[in-house]
């Protein structure tokens, strides 16, 4: 009993992905409004912007958004209930109107508290910067209330995502311009970069999930037929992409430095190598004269390049050798290294995937209702390569035949000829697998034009393939003639 209860509680505690997405679209509203605060402070605050301004702005916006969303949610609830026959519609209407009417009661005190009026600077102090901040908060309030009803797909779109990205970009461009024109500016761009990053991450996740929903809505499919794990999988993919971008930003500079260092070392290695070769050459020409500087014209040309090597040639040569050895080892073990890393990566991704799957309520209607059963398996090494197809057209077949005719090695001629027969069979839409035995191939070609060809070719091929016995000249020419005749007789239909 207790186990049942705990199980039920566990189930209930799972989050609905849609609720989270809806919350994300609401959070996007204050983030969209942040450039408004940014502009007002930058323009009216004498081009000074730092963490304090950013903190104030984001605090005010989120407080306003919180109040607006609570009121908006209540209005939506009452709006739904107003459709019930015994419910007074007046209440819902009052709440709807008050949703917008009470906004100054929250935003005005906030603005006055966070951006106090400065009387010491005259009219400018009265106006700036609280008026634009107040207006921004009012707009944020209205947009938040409007974002509350409906599904998350209705309140946010890809266009909104692009448009609001521009809201960030335009003021930044203006500020940059002003900064170039007015030297007395202290402008910290990092907070804005942080806000923009947050906005982009949330926006990308929402747009990614919307992609699935909008496709379903456009084609009028029942959303319940969508496997729930597709959502989580997409979430993981987009998060992976974002992690890649932001980690690239974070360690990009260091990575660049490393890359430059590696390139420089490689260049230097080349120089050392050339210098070393010339030194060896000059050693042979000038007996014990030593060095390369006194050599021929070539030595003079590379004397500059070899300057570094001259200082400590043994150490540099050792470095080059070690470096080359490391590169060589990495190259020859590349597959093993890649497998180790990819295995490690897959393990982490799988764990994350299952973690997310456990976090959210997942609906698997198609399989749950017994419409279908599904089986997913990783492809084996052999399956990773597509099976050999038939000839696409007569030209391709003739070219392959011509190339095969040039083969003189009898073993290769038999094996390649048999491959051509298999391709001819596949052209006739026979399901020939790479794992099929010669007997199976013959069975699949019964009562077809290739039956006699396979009957003749199978024993020859089997002997060459498994018995290492080469056919005699007459047998080989008969085999070749049959292959040629069979391939040319195949009817190749042009694919549309």
């Amino acid at each position, binding site marked *: 009993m207790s186990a049942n209860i705990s199980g039920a509680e566990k189930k209930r505690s799972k989050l609905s992905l849609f609720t989270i997405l809806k919350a994300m679209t609401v959070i996007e509203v204050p983030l969209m409004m942040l450039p408004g605060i940014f502009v007002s402070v930058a323009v009216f605050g004498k081009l000074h912007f730092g963490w304090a301004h950013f903190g104030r702005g984001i605090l005010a916006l989120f407080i306003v958004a919180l109040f607006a969303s609570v009121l908006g949610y209540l209005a939506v609830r009452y709006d739904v209930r107003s459709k019930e026959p015994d419910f007074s519609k007046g209440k819902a209407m009052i709440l709807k109107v008050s949703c917008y009417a009470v906004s100054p009661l929250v935003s005005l005190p906030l603005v006055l508290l966070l951006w106090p009026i400065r009387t010491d600077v005259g009219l400018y102090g009265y106006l700036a910067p609280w008026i634009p901040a107040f207006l921004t908060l009012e707009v944020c309030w209205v947009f938040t209330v409007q974002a509350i009803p409906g599904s998350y797909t209705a309140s946010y779109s*890809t266009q909104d995502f692009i448009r609001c*990205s521009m809201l*960030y*970009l335009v003021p*930044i461009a203006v500020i*940059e311009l002003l900064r170039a024109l007015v030297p007395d500016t202290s402008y910290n*761009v*990092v907070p*804005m*970069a942080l806000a*923009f*990053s947050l906005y*982009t991450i949330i926006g*990308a996740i929402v*747009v*990614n999930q*919307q*992609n*699935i929903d*909008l*496709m379903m809505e456009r*084609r*009028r*499919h*029942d959303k*319940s*037929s*969508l*496997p729930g*794990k*597709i959502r989580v*999988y*997409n979430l993981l*993919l*987009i998060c992976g*992409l974002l992690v*890649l*971008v932001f980690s*690239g*930003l974070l360690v990009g500079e260091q990575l660049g430095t490393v890359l430059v260092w590696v390139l420089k070392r490689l260049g230097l290695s080349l120089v050392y190598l050339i210098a070393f070769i010339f030194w060896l050459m000059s050693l042979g020409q000038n007996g014990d004269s030593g060095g390369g500087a006194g050599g021929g014209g070539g030595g003079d040309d590379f004397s500059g390049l070899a300057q570094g090597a001259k200082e400590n040639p043994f150490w540099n040569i050792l470095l080059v050798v070690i470096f080359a050895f490391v590169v060589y080892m990495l190259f020859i073990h590349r597959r093993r290294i890649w497998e180790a890393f990819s295995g490690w990566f897959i393990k982490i991704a799988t764990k994350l995937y299952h973690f997310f799957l456990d976090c959210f309520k997942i609906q698997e*209607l*198609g399989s749950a*209702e*017994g*419409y*279908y*059963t*599904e*089986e*997913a*398996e*990783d*492809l084996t090494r052999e*399956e*990773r*390569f*597509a099976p050999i197809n038939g000839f696409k057209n007569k030209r391709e077949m003739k070219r392959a035949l011509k190339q095969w005719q040039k083969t003189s090695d009898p073993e290769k001629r038999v094996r390649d000829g048999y491959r051509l027969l298999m391709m001819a069979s596949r052209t006739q*839409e026979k399901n020939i697998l790479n794992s099929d035995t010669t007997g199976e191939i013959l069975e699949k070609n019964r009562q077809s034009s290739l039956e006699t060809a396979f009957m003749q070719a199978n024993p020859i091929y089997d002997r060459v393939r498994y018995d290492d016995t080469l056919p005699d000249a007459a047998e080989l020419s008969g085999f070749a003639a049959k292959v040629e005749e069979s391939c040319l007789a195949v009817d190749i239909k042009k*694919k549309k």
Partner: protein
Amino acid sequence: MPILVIVFLMAVMLYAQGLLFQKKSFEHFEYRCNFSRPEAFEGDEVELVEQVFNRKWLPLPWFKTEITTSKWLDFAGSQSVVTYNSRFVPSFFLMKSFQKVTRRWKVKCLKRGIFDIERVILVSTDLLGQKTMTQNADVKAQIAVLPQTIDLDSSFVSARYLQGDHPVKNQLIPDPFYVSGVREYRPGDPMKNIHWNATAKLSRIMIRNMEYTTRQNITVVLNLQSRPFEQGEAIDAPQMEHCIRVAATLLERTLEESTPVSLGINSNINNIDKETTETNQNFGREHVLSLMRLMAALPQGSTQDFLVYLREKGESFSTTDIQIVTAYLNEEMFDFARRCAMDDKRVTFFYVGIPTIELPDDCEIYVLRQPRGQSLVDTEGEEAAR
């Protein structure tokens, strides 16, 4: 200018991922779709197997197939959309890198016919839905749904209710290969039939008892006109389907005795006007199955008036029995039966309809038994498809 770097990098990444998915989504990608078996009977459940191979590192955010097939193949329940004669089923997949997904849909064959997967469209997209890629899949999945057989004994009743005496045909010479047992010798019995072992055992002359047999062969004639003078597509399609089921049952019954059977239909699989179908006579499961396949491919209607068909082809039916399955009866058909009776051919009518005319006593007619409250024909399939 870190913000500009972020923006630039973001824009590049978003564009690049769209381009990547657009170029690579259907590369090293394979889609297969087929039925678990090529043939099934009406009402059977088969599997539609979708196999998707993603032979590359790039995973797909989602992958969808849009399957269009006949509405008479019932699957996917509420996920499917039925319009006129087509069923449209979207099927969503999650494709990781180097993965194979096999999905088996449970398909119920509602009606006989040759059905194929008419069209499959493969749809995929990038992570943000900027680009949607579609591709037509080359699918050659086909299934022949053979007509269902019914219980004739419980479905039909003789119009005469077996009242009165009926002449039974007897042969002059008994069949030497059909021994039903031994009996005591009677004067006149041929000596060659004496069963010597039994005679020694019982100390009486015992003789083999031979049965009289006749070589029976049947022509099943199917009338695909639901009304007299009807041309082309049948007005009462469900009734025609039932006629086909009755004909299929008659064909199947010949398997018990390995009776040679042929089939005649006033229609043809290619729906060519004035052309009819007459098959060769043969016996055995393979032959009956081939006739059922033929019936599976028949259109829902006639290509020739049934009376014209009887006039033109009736004389050529050289079998001992002619079994006519029809949705209506009239005097010309009875005349045909009488003419055949004169040639020692037995004509039996299987009448799939509500009797509206007086049925003659000299013709062998079986009428569909219609229990109270039960529909004349099985409309279960129609209901399910709807």
